[in-house]
């Protein structure tokens, strides 16, 4: 479960990238974030991941707050960027092994440190995400973008985090790879993972999402569930918001 309350971010140059963003995703749902370039999607994801500090507001994942326990929150999230970059000198397997080794959840009061990645058979995970066997022990430098994406999702998988943050994961994937990736995401959702995904692909957003949100100027200006969207043209709605027709209508 992810909850974002009044999250705002003003960059050093005064640019207000997030303006009191509020958002809630229930467990086991896919939430797709739509929005024009510069709407603040990546900023939101970056804040959740802890890459940049917010200027206000908070984020909760499974009752763990970003402001109170940023380190523990990181155990709860897995992140996959548009362009998965890995250690070039290592093979796909070695990369996965490294990230599996450091997925340890630090000890807290009453709990010992555990590593959820230990329960995975890494080779099997690599096969599951669709990596051909001959590439498993091949250097990353020989991988295509799609293959790197697969390693990326394998890394997210073995981290075994309940929350997945995907920033434009489909960009640059061929149709077959996109299809496979989509299937993988469905599988993850069925396993009970919560997924937040930013994308520019309206068709896929509508097809995959349990909830679709549109961001505009750092705010979530619209959320609609799958059932609400069934009879509507998401493309139309999106363009309306982007071109600020809706806002203008409201103002009039």
């Amino acid at each position, binding site marked *: 479960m992810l909850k974002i309350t009044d999250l705002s971010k003003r960059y050093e140059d005064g640019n207000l990238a997030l303006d009191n963003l509020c958002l809630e995703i229930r467990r086991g749902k896919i939430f797709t974030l739509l929005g024009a370039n510069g709407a603040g999607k990546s900023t939101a994801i970056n804040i959740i991941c*802890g890459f940049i500090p917010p200027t206000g507001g908070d984020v909760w994942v499974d009752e763990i707050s970003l402001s109170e326990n940023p380190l*523990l929150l*990181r155990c709860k999230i897995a992140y996959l960027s548009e362009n998965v970059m890995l*250690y070039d000198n290592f093979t796909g397997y070695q990369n996965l092994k*490294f*990230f599996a080794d*450091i997925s340890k959840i*630090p000890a807290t009061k009453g709990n010992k440190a555990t590593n959820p990645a230990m329960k995975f058979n890494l080779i099997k995970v690599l096969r599951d995400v669709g990596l051909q066997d001959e590439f498993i022990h091949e250097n990353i430098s020989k991988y295509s973008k799609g293959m790197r994406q697969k390693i*990326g999702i394998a890394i997210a998988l073995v*981290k075994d985090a309940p929350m997945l943050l995907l920033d434009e994961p489909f960009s640059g994937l061929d149709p077959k790879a996109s299809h496979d990736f989509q299937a993988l995401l469905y599988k993850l959702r069925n396993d009970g993972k919560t997924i937040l995904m930013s994308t520019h692909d309206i068709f896929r957003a509508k097809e995959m999402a349990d909830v679709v949100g549109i961001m505009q100027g750092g705010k979530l200006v619209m959320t609609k569930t799958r059932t609400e969207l069934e009879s509507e043209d998401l493309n139309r709605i999106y363009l309306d918001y982007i071109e600020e027709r809706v806002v203008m209508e409201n103002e009039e």
Partner: protein
Amino acid sequence: MLIPLLEHELQNLLKSRRIYLTVTMFLLLFATVFIVRAIDFQKQINQYNDDVMLNDKDLREATNYSQIKPRAIQKPIIFSIFNEGFKIPRVITIQYYEPITNTMTLNEETNLLYNESTQLDITFLITFFLSLFILLISYDSVNGEKQVGTLRILMTYPLKRQSFILKKTLGVFFFVALTFTIPYFLSIMGITYHFVNVLSLNFFLSAIFYWFLVMLFIMFFSLLGIFISCCTTNPNRSLVYCLLVWIMFSIVLPISWDYIIAPRLYNDTLTQLSQGYRDKIMQAQRIMYNDVPDEANINLVGHMNWSGRHFFYETNVAGWKATHEQHHRYQMYIYENYFPVTRDAEQAYDEIQRKRIYMENVRNWVFFYNPIVLFNSLSAQITGNSREDLLRFLHTTRELRDELVNLGVSEEWLLDSRFFIMYELETDVMYNITDQYDLFMLIYEYAGGHGPLEDFFNEIGEERAVGYLQEMVSQQERYNMVLPRFRRYEQPIYTFSEIFARILQYLVVFVVSILVLWVMTWRKFLGFDVR
């Protein structure tokens, strides 16, 4: 958590290509310098043995006070294979009537303001090349990972930013430490095998301490590189910064201090001091050769005596007693006039050295942030090649000289040396021994083969000559010459606590600067844009 990180970092470093280039270059340099210096050390050892043998022989064969020139010989310091430190004269000649001089080294040194030049030893390799090598490894360790994009994934793991910096630092540190440690200890094994007869516990102690210092040095530079890597997100730019910092640290700062700033600060005092020293030496020379009062001027008289002809025999040769008295006067004159001046000269020399030590200390404090300068001075202390050690050597030789004057060379022995027996000869008997050629040769050799003796013995006559010969033999038996004991300079053997006390202040500075750099680095990284 740290162990897989570290393991990964080391593997990552091992797999990059530029590492091989730098490591190979460093190892080649290290091996070359080590071998060259080890060969050089072997030469020094041979030279030392020769010096000792020669000195022993000279002393054994010396029959005359003027021939006593024992030398204080410093054993070559085995650690100098790694670090030369300052140039120290290894042999200092001690003459009875002369100040302790090693004419070549001493005079040269006083004329030069800064006589240390960069020597190609292991310390130079470390401060000059290893620092560059470390910076070349670490310049992109943070921003490079950001540029590749792995930093983002890494930052979604429950990993404190300090741990990340620690991983990076330790990765570079362990890697470089290994590249240094392996050849270093291999070379120590080589030394142990090859020079086992000159090894002491001190050597191993110094070796370990030196190693420890290098580790601190590597730590400092690893942190410096990583700090620079955190300062900019562009690896190219941090490469330029690193190179600039390196040029600044190892070239610009030391050179500008040595050749621009320090001369301004110290030139006058040092010139004054060395001028004072030279004046004293000149004064001593004048006293010894020019200003000798006539009634004590036996040396000059004697000299003219043996090199002149009949003209001088009659006028200058004093009788047996008179000669002794004159010689005694000369000796007293030297004691009273010449020695004080030479002592002053020695003190002036010490003063110059002390000034230099002071300057070096100031330099160390000015460059407290520069580990290269610190490192050089620290290793000079450890290897026993610091300026303090030079002074210590000089003082030991002076003690030896004083011992000679006080005990070894007795007046009685001096006065009975064969040289003076020849003065007994009277000119009027010299004409009668022309046919005693063998006897003449015997005495001639005995007297050291001075030139105009031939004429002398042409005039002395057989009877007198035999008489004097017997006199000489009996004198020799009576005052069997006992040579002063000859002492070799013993290297000080530092205990651990001594070394530690000597360099504690610098160690503290070193460690503190590492800690400060560490704090600066991770604070910098806290604000680093990891996206």
